């Protein structure tokens, strides 16, 4: 394996530069390296059993294969990845996968059913942040070895402890947590029975087109082509540089210091309009911006108030003027692109109607309330626009901007009044968002499910039951219909104003092509990137 240093040295060891001029220091990136500017300070760990942030999932998506992956052209089914085919028993309790032969890990080892079983078992045994995606089928560290088995080297058998919809299982397996790791390599790095977790945090051991060579937190990630991958990488080396400022990304893209800019804001995109040498890629992202209203706080317990706020927001003005290109209006809890998503827009700004609703609730004179939000662009601007909108119907909003993690901490403790926040789906199945926004089976502090509905005291028995039923429904059509029904009820009664859906935007510099951006981070693919 090439070390990072040797390749870089080779690429830079051009004849001892006769011209030690400024030209050299400012030179464009070399042909065999693609440099991507991106915010990557969210990375915590690359171990698929632990990784849950945007950037680490995206890297994993390019370094690993999963059993199945969503068919992004239709968005309603999965297709095989490392699994060639699968069969489901009539009762839906057993799924048997046939592994595609010929897949090799970066180490040269062949990928077998043993690796796939090991990968899923270690997710359950480690039970870190994303572990619930697999444990929600009923697996525990005591039953998982009995229920996930390998009849032969190329066959993987999943016996499900309880009845769950097959489509739900398959979509969950297509999440980042379903990445298949190289058992032999990982176990050779095991320390104190950690199943290689400590080593995998900063290394990859997968069969995808790239492998991780170096990660320095808040500085860079370096990927190198995996020589054994079935899918050949177009560029031998990809450097992802941490550039937190969008303006800085744009500047460096224009100077040719980076080839791809990943976090440009609407205003930056406007500057690029009409410049044909750049390619702008866009894809809807399963990330929703919403306002949550804590029903445990005064004034916010009434449905009329929730509806008044939903009718007061100037969705169009915000989408058109503050975040054009980077966000779209989305008023349902399922973002467009996910199975079952509704795309109609029931709400628009109607000050008279909103005022009337507020009067019905008994607050004709309005009231004062606080709104927490993340102190970063574009949330600052959106929050201030919402503040101005609500002022018009008599609600005085005091904004409380803070760092994202502080906003999350406050919401988890149910101390917020209004909160403007973001929610990214955990996996490509409607249950992820349905559960987050609708399910609150136990509103007490002892609850074992404390997601968004619980955090806003939205304890609705009927919706909770619908979520629980839908996840068991074996008939796909019926299941989708249930989610559509849930969304229609949700918009009438829920203390959540769904506002926007994020677009991922990537801008490719001159001569660069082939990046694919997907609706979730692990579906953004580097393999086809080319540089002329």
């Amino acid at each position, binding site marked *: 394996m090439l070390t990072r240093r040797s390749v870089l040295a080779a690429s830079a060891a051009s004849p001892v530069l006769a011209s030690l001029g400024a030209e050299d220091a400012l030179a464009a990136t070399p042909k065999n390296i693609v440099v991507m500017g991106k915010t990557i300070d969210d990375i915590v760990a690359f171990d698929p059993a632990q990784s849950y942030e945007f950037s680490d999932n995206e890297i994993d998506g390019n370094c690993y294969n999963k059993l199945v992956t969503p068919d992004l052209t239709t968005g309603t089914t999965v297709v095989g990845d490392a699994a060639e085919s699968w069969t489901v028993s009539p009762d839906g309790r057993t799924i048997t996968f046939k592994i595609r032969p010929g897949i090799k890990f970066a180490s040269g080892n062949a990928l077998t059913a043993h690796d796939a079983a090991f990968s899923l078992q270690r997710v359950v045994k480690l039970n870190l942040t994303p572990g619930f995606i697999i444990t929600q089928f009923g697996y525990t560290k005591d039953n998982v070895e009995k229920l996930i088995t390998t009849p032969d080297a190329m066959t993987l058998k999943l016996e499900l402890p309880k009845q769950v919809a097959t489509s739900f299982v398959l979509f969950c397996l297509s999440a980042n947590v379903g990445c298949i790791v190289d058992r032999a390599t990982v176990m050779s790095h095991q320390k104190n029975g950690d199943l290689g977790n400590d080593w995998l945090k900063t290394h990859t051991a997968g069969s995808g087109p790239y492998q991780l060579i170096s990660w320095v937190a808040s500085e860079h990630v370096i990927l190198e082509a995996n020589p054994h991958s079935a899918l050949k990488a177009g560029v031998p080396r990809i450097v992802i540089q941490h550039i937190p*400022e969008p303006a800085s990304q744009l500047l460096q893209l224009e100077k040719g210091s980076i080839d791809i800019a990943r976090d440009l804001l609407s205003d930056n995109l406007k500057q690029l309009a009409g410049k044909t040498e750049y390619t702008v890629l866009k894809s809807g992202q399963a990330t929703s911006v919403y306002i949550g209203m804590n029903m445990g706080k005064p004034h916010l317990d009434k449905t009329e108030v929730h509806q008044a706020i939903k009718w007061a927001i100037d969705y169009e003005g915000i989408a058109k003027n*503050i975040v054009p290109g980077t966000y779209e209006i989305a008023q349902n809890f399922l973002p467009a692109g996910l199975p079952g998503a509704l795309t109609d827009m029931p709400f628009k700004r109607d000050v008279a109607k909103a005022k009337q609703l507020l009067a019905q609730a008994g607050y004709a004179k309005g009231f004062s309330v606080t709104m927490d939000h993340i102190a970063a*662009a574009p949330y600052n601007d959106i929050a201030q626009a919402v503040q101005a909108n609500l002022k018009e119907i008599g609600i005085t909003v005091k904004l409380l901007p803070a760092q994202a993690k502080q906003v999350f901490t406050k919401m988890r403790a149910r101390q917020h009044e209004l909160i403007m926040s973001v929610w990214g789906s955990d996996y490509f199945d409607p249950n992820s968002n349905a559960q987050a926004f609708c399910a609150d089976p136990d509103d007490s502090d002892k609850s074992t499910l404390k997601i968004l509905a619980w955090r806003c005291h939205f304890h609705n028995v009927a919706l909770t039951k619908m979520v629980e039923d839908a996840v068991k429904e074996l008939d796909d059509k019926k299941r989708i219909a249930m989610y559509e029904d849930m969304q229609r009820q949700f918009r009438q009664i829920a203390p959540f104003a769904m506002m926007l859906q994020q677009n991922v935007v990537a801008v490719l510099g001159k001569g660069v092509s082939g990046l694919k951006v997907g609706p979730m981070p692990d579906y953004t693919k580097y393999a086809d990137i080319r540089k002329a």
Partner: protein
Amino acid sequence: MSDTSLRAWLLSDTPTSRRQAGWGRLYRLWCDLRTNPLAMAGLITIILLIVAALAAPLLAAYSPDAQDLSNHLAAPNAAHWLGTDELGRDILARLLWGGRITLGMVVAVVVLVAPVGLVVGCAAGYIGGLPDRILMRVTDVFLAFPRLILALAFVAAITPGITSAIIAIALTAWPPYARIARAETLAIRNSDFIAATRLAGASRTRIILVHIIPLSLGSLIVRVSLDMSSIILTAAALGFLGMGAQPPSPEWGAMVASARRFIVNAWWVPMMPAIAIFVASLAFNLLGDGLRDVLDPKQRS
């Protein structure tokens, strides 16, 4: 009293009361200061800034919060002299209103810090012994942090906002004041006149409050005027790092912070408030520098 006789009273070589002597000293300082053009430029700028901030409702043609999303990031023009920001708000109006916050923060810090520093420093210096030693160690701990870093940590610990920023800056600003007050106290504590007062039966509290503190005031005022610009810059840096005043507040540092992303395509949006910070801070520095020259006889020409 006519102008000339007032002048004579102030400049009298043989003042008849402590009050006359005090006013006389201040007047002579003022005469000295007046001859320093840079210091006067600073003083006039400060007065103009304060007046502009106080008269913001009269001077500003727009509300600082009035958004006009369709006219955002407009370049300076006849309707908006300094252009508009990312939400279409008038930058000039925001600067004027923001002056109240920025200058208000400075005043708040000084009001918080000066009395505390003075009382603590004088008390420690006069009482001496263990309390003094403990106090000096505490100031050492606080002085051991660069000001901005301590303020950053404090604000992060409370929640970002104007009040927290004021408290954080005050916490980092008081130790030097206490030190100066203590040094002054040590210098006068054994003077004959304090000893006489003590013999006359004055209590410790009375001596500290009535005699020692007023005498330490002078050097403290110089320190304050020199500290002003540093307070403005720390407040702005906190705002810039997202830990000070928060949008939509038109505090100058926060304005720069939320607009820094437009530096390339709409430079005036972040630069106008940055220039305002610079001007205010420079004005205080010029005044402080002039004051020091006047008060420090060593440097007088």
